[in-house]
């Protein structure tokens, strides 16, 4: 397996090309600029490849919509403030049932915020983000290799459900370099494109639109989308568990905070504190069942995120009042350390042991 040292942003770009992405549209924003830069260089080498640095984020997402209507594998990327601008387009993609991959390398917010890593766009990503009753699948990788691996998965999910898919990273994952291999990444499956607009010569005309004045038709469209989302909830939940079997306390964290949590848990285990980790890989659909099952045995759950408490809402919904939820959050672009989390979790752990006695 040939490995190369690459930034997360660049790795996303190469993985997209190998996954059959032929259209990339983007507008620069730190900390994801290396992805746009990589695509500017790489796309002209791809047969039929198109790279456009658009005039705005809104233009970029609508170019993605246009390319997707024409049947291309299309992608855009941005960071938090830019993602807010893309939400209208994502809502239209969902309404039109068009596949697309959208990458958000999250930075500190709200507003202009800063350019440091954060996880504060969790609720925006997992609740649709734009207007209307829709959902997007959200993948949350936690290393450069996982960023690369998430891209072909995202394109396949987007095509098989005809729905936008979000990859939610952050500034740290984007800027960091790690060894990465692309050996196994290729476009494997071909999806029937019986809906795309290619000119109606020799076949009945098609149309793609989201304007449904007839309330009955709009309601039926909403229920149709709802059934599709239920299918995603049943079939597409992805998560990882780490040392959960004998755990007395289970940390729940994703992306960057999950890898920090793993470092903390290794230290906690050296001190014989039985702490494990459940790491959601899909943030939506959320791995509700594994958390609920774990709660039949474990009483203490520890939510750790780089925000003031967004993931914790899904953990609460999953637990339905069972167990006790501990929390530690660092918003604003701060990257917490494994040692710091080790101290906080061990304090909570000892306090819980006291309560149990």
């Amino acid at each position, binding site marked *: 397996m040939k*490995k*190369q*040292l690459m930034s997360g942003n660049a790795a996303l770009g190469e993985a997209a090309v190998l996954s059959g992405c032929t259209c990339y549209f983007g507008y620069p924003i*730190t*900390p994801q600029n290396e992805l746009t830069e990589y695509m500017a260089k790489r796309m002209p080498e791809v047969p039929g490849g198109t790279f456009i640095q658009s005039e705005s984020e809104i233009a970029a997402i609508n170019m993605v919509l246009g390319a997707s209507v024409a049947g291309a594998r299309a992608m855009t990327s941005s960071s938090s403030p830019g993602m807010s601008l893309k939400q209208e387009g994502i809502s239209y993609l969902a309404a039109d049932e068009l596949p697309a991959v959208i990458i958000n390398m999250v930075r500190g917010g709200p507003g202009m915020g800063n*350019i440091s890593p954060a996880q504060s766009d969790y609720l925006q990503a997992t609740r649709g983000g734009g207007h209307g009753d829709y959902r997007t699948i959200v993948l949350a990788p936690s290393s450069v290799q996982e960023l690369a691996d998430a891209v072909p998965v995202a394109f396949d999910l987007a095509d098989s459900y005809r729905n936008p898919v979000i990859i939610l990273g952050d*500034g*740290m994952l984007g*800027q*960091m*370099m*790690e*060894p990465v291999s692309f050996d196994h990444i290729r476009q494997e499956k071909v999806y029937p494109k019986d809906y795309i607009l290619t000119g109606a010569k020799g076949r009945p005309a098609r149309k793609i639109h989201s304007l449904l004045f007839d309330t009955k038709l709009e309601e039926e469209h909403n229920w149709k989308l709802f059934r599709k989302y239920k299918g995603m909830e049943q079939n597409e939940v992805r998560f990882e568990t780490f040392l959960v079997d004998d755990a007395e306390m289970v940390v729940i964290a994703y992306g960057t905070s999950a*890898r*920090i949590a*793993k*470092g*903390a848990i*290794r230290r906690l285990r050296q001190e014989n504190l039985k702490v494990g980790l459940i790491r959601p890989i899909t943030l939506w659909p959320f791995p509700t069942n594994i958390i609920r099952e774990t709660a039949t045995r474990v009483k203490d759950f520890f939510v750790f995120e780089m925000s003031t408490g967004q993931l914790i809402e899904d953990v609460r919904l999953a637990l339905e009042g069972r167990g006790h939820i501990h929390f530690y959050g660092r918003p604003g672009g701060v*990257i917490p*350390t*494994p*040692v*710091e989390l080790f101290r906080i979790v061990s304090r909570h752990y000892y306090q819980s042991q006291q309560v149990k006695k």
Partner: protein
Amino acid sequence: MMIKTIFSGFGGQGVLSMGYTVANTAMFEGKHVTYFPSYGVEVRGGTANCTVVVSDEEIASPVASEPDFVVAMNQPSFARFQSILQSGGLICVNSSIVNTSAARHDIEILAVPTSELAEQIGSIKVANMVLLGAFIRASSIVSFDFMIKNLSQILGEGKSQLIKLNKEALEMGFNYVKE
């Protein structure tokens, strides 16, 4: 074993490429490695730094709150990073332009007249590689022989005409510490 190093200096002194060179060497040696640059408002003449973590096992965080080693190419970096170095840690400095008289007493200092040594081989531009050679000698963070042997692969395409000069600079720094 997990070793965290911060490479720091003025933007344009090549501190990011020092870190990248170590990280790439460690990867080719088969180790776990992360490279995390400071990013954002850094400009030529401003300050730049990157953190490289080399480990036998999976790396939780690419950030170093208490690094084992610091490489400081200029005075502001020396002041900033000597204060977070682990007690007993080593700081390698470009003593041509860094005054180390205000250093903590619980850390080790390796002072290398980097600019003068680089000028001896004809280019101040490879000052970073001189200090890198010295740092590798003092830290053994990666194998120096392995790095020299695979330098063209490590530095990557586009640097082929500079391999000889870089090799000379690395050896100059490495041998300076030997003596």
